[in-house]
């Protein structure tokens, strides 16, 4: 070991995060130290990780053994293009979130602060170790650390009953999922008992085993990602957590599940079946549609974003499934296109969703309200947060020239021209999936207009909103970092796609190749005659037109204006209560998609002097899947409860009988 390698650099950076956490917990009451030094330091480490990962994407894979863990079971670490990409995502996003968190901390939190600092940085480090792990054991240790630290972060305000409940649900589903992952590793390792990823790659399974391994992994990672029907924890846990933690969980942690599933399906398993891809497509579409419909009817701003995260995970899974289909039919160029769209969307979602979660954090701090029905008009008091959130909103709605549009464009492109598949029905049905994606993207626009319009525009719905204050300096820097990420990812797509090329080479054995042979400004992944998009020209012309029109109008006409009361068709009485509420805005969706929703309504009688109207929309899957399962488990436990007699003699007899049975069995 003569020179310092990239892997070592990333490792040291991750240990640096742990060290920051340790310092924080040693000096729990030093507010200035924690918020003004430790968190910005964590952000700096994030940037370092992102830069190292960027160079690791271009470099050859590196491996290393750590003499930690159990005897004879050292941790294997490895960084290749895939893990480097996700490390880049982690580093780049966490830099923005950490610097925001530095400004978000409040002195009143007291000794909690040190603990939060430790948990937050351990969470970051464990995610880095998930990406680095190269054997099943190290992976599971890092995975569980990630689940536990995030659980404690979610339950930071554990005095609230509902937050405890959300945390419990999260912990439960995370662990049910972890069992799936563990079993999947078990199947892939076979009977050899060697849990390194190298051994799994080399071990070729036949028959039904690869399918079992894939399905177990899909179950396990799907639970973490929030795929249907394992999504129920997401809209509970995300709103419960402090905003930087929600941003981290939604932006980055969900992507670790995507990373794991990519690792298992493309790297550890050496052959893929086409119907795995179709299964993922179906799950992804269902997840995305469900997520976006529920996002559009939420009345709590963080729940709305949580459902929107479910939608985006669905879109990512759709792209993933398409990649699997193409890969199984050995179409490297098309699978590279679909994979690029998938990974690009992971990166985009990390940026815009963190940005949106952080802006809800600022709103929450300024107003103390999460309920959309009590917000409104905040663009006047909080212009910084409002305009930066607008960037996130436009990106999330998939509008050009921001980043969300590019990945949706790539995804639609990869669905449109699938005529090469040797499978008639698939050829026919895949372009129709594009129709569903178009619907989902348009609905996302609806949800995002509702989110922004109800929070930041209109008249304040409560008196106290007038005193709201804008975000502090550090918070602004964090938001700005993420917003410029949204711009940058949207404006230079060809550079990002070139960066993704090694990942595509690694996973699907083909890349998009040189994407810019037709000029640096043009993105044409297949051929410019077939499809092309140039964000630079697009943005450039808008950026020229808007000031030009403004200048022309003001130069040759006039710029006079007078402030008057709103016109509103001459209607004299206007109160903030006459605006649409969040419920009102979601009403068309509730009405059109009635059959998807579980709704209970209470109408007041016409003679009621104090009428109350209630409309509650609940998750039908909770009633269709979870409660029956819970009842089943309860009944099963009641059935076997007779074993538990509470007398030691009986337990001893159980042991004795078991021993006898085993002896008889092994003898035969």
């Amino acid at each position, binding site marked *: 070991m003569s020179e310092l390698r990239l892997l070592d650099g990333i490792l040291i950076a991750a240990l640096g995060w742990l060290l920051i956490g340790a310092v924080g917990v040693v000096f729990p009451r030093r507010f200035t130290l924690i918020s003004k030094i430790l968190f910005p330091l964590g952000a700096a480490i994030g940037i370092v990780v992102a830069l190292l990962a960027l160079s690791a994407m271009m470099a050859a894979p590196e491996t290393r053994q750590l003499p930690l863990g159990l005897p004879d079971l050292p941790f294997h670490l490895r960084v290749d293009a895939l893990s480097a990409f996700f490390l880049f995502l982690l580093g780049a996003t966490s830099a923005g979130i950490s610097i925001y968190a530095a400004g978000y901390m409040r002195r009143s939190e007291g000794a909690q602060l040190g603990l939060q600092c430790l948990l937050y940085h351990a969470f970051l480090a464990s995610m880095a170790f998930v990406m680095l792990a190269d054997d099943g054991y190290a992976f599971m240790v890092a995975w569980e650390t990630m689940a536990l630290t995030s659980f404690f972060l979610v339950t930071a305000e554990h005095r609230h009953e509902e937050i405890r409940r959300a945390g419990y649900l999260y912990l439960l589903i995370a662990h049910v999922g972890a069992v799936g992952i563990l079993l999947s590793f078990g199947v892939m390792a076979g009977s050899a008992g060697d849990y390194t990823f190298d051994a799994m790659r080399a071990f070729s399974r036949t028959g039904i085993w690869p399918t079992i391994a894939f399905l177990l992994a899909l179950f396990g990672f799907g639970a973490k990602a929030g795929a249907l029907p394992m999504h129920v924890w997401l809209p509970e846990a995300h709103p419960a957590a402090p905003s930087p933690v929600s941003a981290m969980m939604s932006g980055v942690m969900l992507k670790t599940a995507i990373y794991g599933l990519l690792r298992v399906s493309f790297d550890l398993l050496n052959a893929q079946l086409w119907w795995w891809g179709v299964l993922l497509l179906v799950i992804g579409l269902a997840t995305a549609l469900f997520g976006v419909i529920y996002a559009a009817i939420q009345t709590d701003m963080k729940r709305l974003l949580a459902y929107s995260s479910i939608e985006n995970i669905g879109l990512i899974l759709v792209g993933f499934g398409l990649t699997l289909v193409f890969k199984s039919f050995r179409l490297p160029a098309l699978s590279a296109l679909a994979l690029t769209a998938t990974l690009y969307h992971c990166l985009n979602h990390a940026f815009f969703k963190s940005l949106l979660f952080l802006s809800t954090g600022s709103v929450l701090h300024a107003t103390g309200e999460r309920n959309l029905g009590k917000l409104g008009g905040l663009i*006047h008091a909080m212009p910084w947060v409002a305009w930066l959130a*607008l960037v996130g909103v436009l990106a999330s709605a*998939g509008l*050009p020239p921001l980043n969300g549009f590019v990945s949706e*464009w790539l995804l*639609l492109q990869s669905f*449109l021209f699938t005529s090469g598949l040797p499978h*008639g029905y698939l*050829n*026919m049905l895949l*372009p*129709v999936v*594009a*129709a569903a994606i*178009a*619907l989902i*993207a*348009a609905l996302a*626009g609806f949800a995002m*207009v*509702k989110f922004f*319009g*109800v929070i930041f*525009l*209109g*008249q304040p719905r409560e008196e106290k909103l007038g005193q709201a204050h804008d975000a502090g300096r550090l918070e602004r820097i964090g938001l700005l970092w993420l917003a410029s990420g949204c711009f940058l990812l949207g404006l230079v797509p060809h550079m990002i796609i070139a960066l993704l090329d090694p990942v595509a080479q690694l996973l699907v054995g083909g890349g998009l190749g040189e994407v810019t042979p037709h000029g640096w400004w*043009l993105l*044409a992944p297949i051929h*410019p*005659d*077939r*499809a*092309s*998009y*140039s964000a630079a*020209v697009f943005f450039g*012309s*808008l950026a020229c*037109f*808007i000031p030009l*029109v403004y200048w022309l109008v003001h130069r040759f*006409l*006039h710029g006079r*204006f*007078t*402030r*008057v*009361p*709103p*016109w*509103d*068709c001459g*209607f004299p009485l*206007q109160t*903030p209560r*006459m*605006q*649409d509420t969040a419920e*009102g805005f979601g*009403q068309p969706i509730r009405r059109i998609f009635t059959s998807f929703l579980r709704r209970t309504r209470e109408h007041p009688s016409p003679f009621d002097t104090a009428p109350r109207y209630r409309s509650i929309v609940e998750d039908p899957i909770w009633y269709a899947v979870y409660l029956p399962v819970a009842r089943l488990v309860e009944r099963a436990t009641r059935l076997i409860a007779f074993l538990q007699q509470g007398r030691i003699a009986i337990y001893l007899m159980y042991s004795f009988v078991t021993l006898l049975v085993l002896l008889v069995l092994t003898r035969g």
Partner: protein
Amino acid sequence: MNAYAILAQLLELATALVMAPILVGWVNQCRAWMQNRSAPPLLQTYYTLNKLFHKEVLLAHNASSLFHSAPYIIFSCMALAAAIVPTLSTDLIFSPAADAIALVGLFALARVFIALAGMDVGTAFGTLGARREMLIGFLAEPALLMVFFTASLISQSTSLSTIVETLAHKEIAIYPSLAFAGVAFTMVSLAENARVPVDNPTTHLELTMIHEAMILEYSGRHLALIEWAAALKLFAYSCLGIALFFPFGIPEASDPLSLTLAAIILVVKLAIGGFLLALIETLSAKMRIFRAPEFLGTAFLLAVLAMLVHLLLRA
């Protein structure tokens, strides 16, 4: 990229900016004739724009910076959209920069801004209009994309120029899928341009309005820009319909002669198209707002059907 491409591009933008208000005037004139009213002059939209541009802007007390900037953004989006659609030539400098999907994205960007501006002042009408506009939007947008995809599958390209070149200049073939797509496109265009039977451009003070409700608070130059942008949108949609379904006569080259010829053909086509639009508007009645999802759902299904028809016939 050559000098003629730049010339064609500039000419096309100028044509769109000049012709869009005239197209609106023409539709209004045709409608008035058919309804036995005396028609306003063809240039009436220009007179209105002129009047509005010179008037003072009255801003509501709590109108934010977003409210000021939205008209400029919306106008620029629509101008760019009109520049992207190939009308006079397929050899344009903007055509590789944005394909059909990006065009839909551009319309969506303008829609989001106009909806947000509608919510900004916080009046009952504004938010109502914004909500309805987004409702129409999320129903119409996928249908529009599907229409484009049907045309894209025929030409194996989402680039508008390539689509037009394939449909206009390759071997003559009849595409049954385009018939379905054409009906779907007409329905979407009616909804997107706030026309009867989905919305009524002349209505005011009615609970049924959509587009007008959002822009109630605008006045003066802001209103002028928004009205002009709406005219540009109608122009862009008409040209899209022409480009997708009646592309004959759009030249591939952009020398002055073919540009002139193309301009004459375009005017004739637009005159016919405007007449048909007025006819549809005269013959149909405004629907209740919750019939609009059914109307647009039909458009979406027709567009998906168009795509399936194409795939079935090819297989």
